[in-house]
């Protein structure tokens, strides 16, 4: 556990480059805030899945690709740390970044509370769902990053997977009802459930499964590449 925290420890330094990007994202958040003059965060949370799907892969794309490109992966992999610890370290770094990205939105939340009295349920659900969704997409991004030396390949792969999972929700309309179970693969579906304030274990399991699945695949990939 300590070692995986150490592996994560390095990440903030590398993310200095990303800080500029975060400012841009923050601006995106804020431009919408004052448009919807309702005492609820509903609309914000509605757009979150797509936003995360587009933004998070950019944060994660360098995580492995850059190490492979610079050769520093050779130092990391010859340290007495398990592969899974290395991956978890990067994962938590990404997750904390997602959390930091959400911090500015608390300002909006404060405004909403001041203006009206929103239900606590959806708000808590929304943020919880955001973290779970963020974690899931981060794990996809990390997997994509491990596939190539080129961060561009990583980000496009992550986008491909992420958008496919997101779009599923919309495609369900076109599918015969027998295939409607596909809906359960969709990130949007599960996120909307949670953000309504209903904490259903199925949704939580979905997100956790995605995270575990992609991280295990990444371990495999890193180990097989030897």
């Amino acid at each position, binding site marked *: 556990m*300590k*070692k995986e925290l*150490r*592996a994560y*420890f*390095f990440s903030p*330094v*590398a993310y*200095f480059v990303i800080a500029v990007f975060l400012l841009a994202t923050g601006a995106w958040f804020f431009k919408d805030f004052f448009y919807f003059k309702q005492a609820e965060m509903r609309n914000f949370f509605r757009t979150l899945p797509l936003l995360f799907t587009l933004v998070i892969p950019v944060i994660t794309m360098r995580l492995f690709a850059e190490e492979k490109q*610079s*050769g*520093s992966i*050779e*130092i990391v*992999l*010859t*340290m*007495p*740390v*398990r592969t899974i610890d290395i991956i978890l370290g990067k994962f938590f770094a990404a997750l904390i970044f997602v959390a930091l990205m959400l911090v500015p939105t608390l300002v909006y939340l404060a405004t909403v509370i001041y203006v009206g009295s929103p239900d606590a349920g959806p708000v808590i659900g929304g943020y919880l769902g955001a973290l779970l969704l963020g974690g899931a997409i981060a794990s996809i991004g990390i997997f994509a990053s491990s596939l190539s030396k080129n961060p561009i390949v990583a980000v496009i792969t992550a986008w491909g997977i992420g958008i496919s999972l997101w779009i599923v929700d919309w495609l369900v309309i076109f599918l015969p009802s027998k295939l409607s179970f596909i809906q359960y693969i969709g990130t949007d579906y599960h996120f909307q459930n949670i953000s309504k304030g209903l904490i259903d274990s199925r949704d939580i399991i979905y997100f956790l499964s995605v995270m575990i699945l992609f991280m295990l695949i990444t371990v495999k990939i890193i180990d097989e590449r*030897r």
Partner: protein
Amino acid sequence: MINVENITKYYGDFRAVNDISFAIRDGEITGLLGPNGAGKTTTLRMLTCFLKQNEGVITVGGVKTDEDPLKVKKMIGYLPESAPIYPDMLVYDYLKYISDLRGIEKLNRIEEMGELCGITDVMHKSVHELSKGYKQRVGLAHAMIHDPEILILDEPTSGLDPNQIIEIRNLIKELGKRKTVILSTHILPEVEATCDRVIIINRGSIVADDRTENLQVSGDQKSVISLKLSGGDYSSLEESLKGLSGISGVERQDEDNITGVRITGDGTRDLRPEIYGIIKNSDWVIYEMQQEQESLENIFRELTVGGDYE
């Protein structure tokens, strides 16, 4: 300490390392010598568990690399080629990161490394600001920070200027007194200067494995003596020289106004006293007489003909 048995490694279809075996002894500095592309880096990467071999067994300190890689990694300090250290970090932060990863509690260990490797002055700098020489030293520091029994250095002096090269070599020799060191290089003088034993690799196979002194002697057993003189008559000198037994060649190599003579003997005995005798009894003024050592370079070239892939 380290046993490599019948190791083969493929990169796809390409066989980089072909059934090699060798043993590294405790406390020795071993040089892995070979042309570019011979398989040195691949071999080192298998020792450090960065790569897995396709066939064969590697045992480090009694532990097999495929059974318990974590334990092996703890025993080894590794400096990969071109020291790929995170450029955005400060030197101190980087060393702190590595010592955390290795579970080292004491903070003064970083200072010790700083003094040992001469990087105390740059601790506060970002890695990307450092010159190659300093980066290499930081790399050495990170490899040494957990005081490993085994140090594996891949081309530790590549890209360094002559002063830096000498410093690193001295450092390696110092360390070699207490530790087992393996270094890879294609620079022959480096091996002659630092290593107790040499393993020569060519095209994935081992072509020589012996103590450095033994290899130096084992060449063609020729001896070469070069003379620089002036003032006399060359043809009569040549005749007298050729008259000595054990001479296989006499060559003239003039430089400016000085007559140069290169005498090749068959190594059966030291010809120098007799050569001097000849010159004493003539009009020649002698400026220099030098006997060349059979160098590793000739042996290397003989053994690795056609080995360079680049």
